[in-house]
C-alpha cells in the first residue's frame, strides 16, 4: 500500500446509493431556499431536482420537494440536518420505490412540425395526460405530467419528430390514501 501523505484518513468503502424524495415544510421567508440548498451544497449532498412554492398563504408555509441520491447514512444525515434549520417545520423522507407515494413531474414540450407529425406526437403523449396549451398550423405546445424517467425517454424519442424546446419542473410528491404526512 502506498504510504498516505495526508493527515486525514483515506476514503474507504462507499455504501449503496439510494434515491429519495425529501419534502420540507418551511416558513416562506427571505433566504429560506438558500438555507436549504446551501446545506446540500455545503455538505456535499446531491440535488437531482427541486420544486418549491408557497402552499399556505395564511401560515406563510412553503413546501420544498427535493430529489436526492446518497447512501442510507447520508440520507439520514440530510433529514436530521434539515430538521435543525430554524425555519424548517417538518421533513418527509420517501424512497423513490415507495408504492404509497405519488411522484410527478411536469414538462412543457414545443414541437414544430407539420400537422401529421404533430398528430403522431400527440398520440405518443397520450399516456401522460397531455394538454394542448397552444396550437398553430406549424407548431404545438403540449403539457405532460409523468415520472422523470418517462419524460427523459419522451424527450429523447421526440427529438426526431420536431421537439425543439423542453421546460421541466422538479418532482412533487404526495402520499396515497387518506393519511397525511405528519
Amino acid at each position, binding site marked *: 500500500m502506498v504510504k*498516505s*501523505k*495526508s*493527515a*486525514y*484518513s*483515506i476514503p*474507504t*468503502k462507499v455504501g449503496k446509493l439510494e434515491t429519495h424524495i425529501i419534502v420540507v415544510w418551511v416558513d416562506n421567508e*427571505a*433566504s429560506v431556499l*438558500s*438555507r436549504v440548498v*446551501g446545506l446540500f451544497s*455545503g455538505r456535499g449532498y446531491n440535488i437531482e431536482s427541486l420544486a418549491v412554492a408557497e402552499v399556505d398563504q395564511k401560515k406563510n408555509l412553503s413546501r420544498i420537494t427535493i430529489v436526492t441520491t446518497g447512501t442510507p*447514512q447520508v440520507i*439520514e*444525515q440530510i433529514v*436530521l*440536518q434539515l*430538521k*435543525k*434549520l*430554524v425555519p424548517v417545520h417538518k421533513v418527509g423522507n420517501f424512497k423513490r420505490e415507495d408504492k404509497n407515494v405519488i411522484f410527478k413531474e411536469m414538462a412543457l414540450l414545443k414541437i414544430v412540425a407539420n400537422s401529421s407529425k404533430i398528430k403522431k406526437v400527440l398520440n405518443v403523449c397520450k399516456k401522460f395526460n397531455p394538454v394542448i396549451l397552444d396550437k398553430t398550423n406549424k407548431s404545438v405546445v403540449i403539457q405532460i405530467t409523468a415520472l422523470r424517467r418517462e419524460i427523459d425517454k419522451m424527450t429523447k424519442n421526440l427529438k426526431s419528430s420536431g421537439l425543439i424546446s423542453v421546460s421541466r419542473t422538479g418532482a412533487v410528491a404526495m402520499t396515497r390514501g387518506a393519511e397525511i404526512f405528519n
Partner: protein
Amino acid sequence: MPKLYTGAEIVFKCLEDQKVKHIFGYPGGAVLPIYDELKNHSSIKHILVRHEQGAGHAAEGYARSSGKPGVVLVTSGPGATNVVTALTDAYMDSVPLVCISGQVPTHLIGTDAFQECDTTGITRPCTKHNWLVKDINDLSRIMHLAFEVATTGRPGPVLVDIPKDIQFAKAKYIPAKKIKREKILSNNRFNQKDIDKLIQLMNKASKPIFYTGGGVVNSGPEASKLLRELVSLTGFPITSTLQGLGAYPGNDNQFIGMLGMHGTYEANNAMHDCDLLINIGARFDDRITGKIDEFSPKSKKVHIDIDPSSINKIIKVDLSIVGDVKDVIKLTTKTLKQKNINLEKSNKQKISKWWQQIEKWKTKDSLNFINSDKIIKPQYAVQRLYELTKNQDTFITTEVGQHQMWAAQHYKFDKPNRWMTSGGLGTMGYGLPAAVGVQLAHPKKLVIDVAGEASVLMTMQEMSTAVQYNLPIKIFILNNQYMGMVRQWQELLHEKNYSESYTEALPDFVKLAEAYGCVGIRANDPEELDQKIQEMIDIDKPVIFDCRVDQAENCFPMIPSGKPHNQMLLGPKDQEENKITGKGKALV
C-alpha cells in the same frame, strides 16, 4: 400610546433583558447609532478590541469559561467578514455567541454601497441561524430569538444584521417574556426504556469505557458532578476528547487520559479493544476515530448527545440516547441506584481483568519524553507550569499546534470550563483573545494562554486590549521558531522538506511586551524556568513569556494518518527500545 424606542435603544433593552454584562466590539459607520446609545446603559461594558476576529474569540473565551453567551458588536462589510473565522470556530466547537452587525441602510442594500457585503449570505454556513432585520417592528423578537437559538439545544453562534436606518427607526419594545413563541421542542427525547437498555449493556460488559466530550462541559457544571458520580459508581475507565478535558478530574485513577491522534496509548488501545463504548457528548471527530473501518471493532456503541444529527453521522451506534447529557446521566445514576444491582462490586470483579490490561498499557508511559538539562523541553515547560499553578484556580487557553497538544497532555484539569481551545476549526490565534474574554469573566483568576510563537502573532494586537482594560493575562509562548505541528508532519510525511514552516524574522517578544506596555520575560535554561514562571504568576499585569524550547521536539504519541487506534507511533524512548528488540516495527 406606548413609548417608542429607536432600533439602537431596542438593541440595548434586549441586551439588558438578557442580562448581558460585556460586549466585545469595534465601531464603524454602519453601527454608529448603536455605539451612540452605549453611554446610556451603564450595566453593559463594551470591550474595544483591535480586530473583529479578536472580538469573536474573546467572546468565545468569555462564553466557554462562564457558560453565558458571548456578545459581539461589529460594523458592516470588513467588520462582519473579519468576524467570520470566530463564528466558524464557535460553530465547530458549539460555543454560544450572539453577533450583532451593522449593515448599510435598507435602500442601499444590493447596490455595492460603501462597506456593504452580503453578511447574512456569508455567515449562513457558519451560524446556527442569522437574520437581516428589515422591519423595526421585528427587532425585539429577533434579538430575543437570537439569544434563545444560540443557547438552547446544541449551543452555537447566531448573527443579527441590522441596517443603519433600522437603528434609527422607532418601534415598541417587546420584552423577552412577552414574545409569542411556537412550542419549543424539548432537548430530551429519551425515556426510561433507553436508560434500561444502557444499564443492561453496562451489566453485560466486561471491557467497558466512557468516552466523554465537550457536550458534558456545555451541559453545565452539574453535568460534570453527575459524571463523576456515574463513573465512580460503575468503576469503568474514562477517557476524554480535547474539548471535554476538565469535565472529569485529570488526576483521578479512573481517568486514562485524552484519546485521539495525540491521546495516550492506554486510552486509544482501550477504545480499540473495548466491548462497550459509551460516548457522552462527543461527536466521533476524525481526530478521534482514526481509520473508521477499524474503529473500536469489537464494541457495542452507545451515543448520548443533544444533537440528533450527531448520531450515526460517522460511526453507526447500537443505542442512541438523544438528550441533555446532564438529564441522561441523572436518570442513569438514579436507575442504577434504584435497581440496587450492586454494580460496583459485581462489575469491579468482572472488569478487573480489563483494568489489568489497561495498567499494562499504562506502563508504556506514552507521554514520556527525554528531558534535558541544557535546553528546555516544551513538555517539561508545560509540566512545570502545571506544578506551579495547580494550587490555584487556573484557566488555560491555547493557540493551535504542538503546544496545544502538549498542554492537553501534560496539564491536568480537575474542573470544567477551565480549558479553552480551538478544537474543531483549529484556529491559530484563538488563545490570546480568548484569554482576554476569560479574564473579563473571571477578574481575579489566573488566566494563561499556552501559545506557540507562530500562532500568537496572528492576533498579537489584542495585547493592546489586555493592557487597556488591565487584564493580567499571561501569554506563555513555547517558542521553537517553527510552526511546530507543520514541521512535525513535514518530518514524518514529507521527507523532512520543511517548506515555509520556519519563521526567519521573529520579533523580540520581551521588547514587544514592553512596547505594548506589559511585562516581557524570557527563559532559555531549564534551571531558571521555575523561578521565571513564578515571576510571571506574581506579576499583576499582562505578561508575554518567551520560553525558548527545543526546536526539534515532536509531539508523541501519535496515530499516523489512516491508521487505527492500536497502531500508535510512540515517543523517542520507545522507538529506541523497539529498534533494539525489533518488535516495535509493527507499531510504526
